[in-house]
């Protein structure tokens, strides 16, 4: 996946899969910046969950884009 302006691979609104997790599709809701180990990009994601959504902050390397449609 091409790197976008600002050095991030994902953008707000992207639907992603969190690798090595049982979570379903998550949505990128915030680009937190290069505050992971060795400057890795951190993203805040919203995961669909009942009764209310959960939020999780993960590194770029833990995410995989889910194609639209």
């Amino acid at each position, binding site marked *: 996946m091409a790197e976008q302006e600002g050095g991030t691979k994902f953008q707000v609104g992207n639907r992603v899969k969190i*690798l090595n997790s049982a979570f379903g599709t998550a949505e990128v809701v915030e680009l*937190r910046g290069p*505050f992971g180990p060795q*400057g890795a990009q951190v993203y805040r994601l919203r995961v669909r969950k009942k009764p209310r959504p*959960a939020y999780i*902050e993960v590194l770029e390397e*833990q995410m995989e884009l889910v194609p639209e449609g």
Partner: protein
Amino acid sequence: MPSASLVDWQTVRQGKLDAVDAHCAALFAVVPPPTLAEEALQGYVMLVSGHFQGFCRTLYTECAQVFAAALPAALKPTVQTQFSAGLMLNTGNPVVKNIREDFDRFGLSLDLVAADPANAGRITHLGHLNHWRNHSAHQKATPPPIGVPQVMVPADVRDWRASCDGIAGSLDGIM
């Protein structure tokens, strides 16, 4: 070695606040200050509080990711979810209670005054900053309680900002 969050606070965030400070200083240099000077100062106090909250939140994120990095891949999402759940700094003001409540998740008892005795006064300033932040954001008409400056002037905001800087250094040192 300082955290990336502290470097961000000291460079990017302080740089933005310097620009707002200069804008307010120019407005208050006029005698009498124009009506918009008061509005600008209210914006300044909200930005100082907001950027300090941003620093605290980012430092928390940075620490949580370092912690998670030490875990096997299969455990990371579970721990990251727990670190992200119900954070006070995501929605609440950067008051000492909220900062403590979030950072205590790392299994420490956050004692800012033990880290630096000067933090006692800085914590008082942080309370004043957040009082005036709320006063401005909610456009309250009621006077501040005893002990809080009854009128906010640019020098107050600069003092509160300097105190945030001191607390930021201590928080970074502790973590």
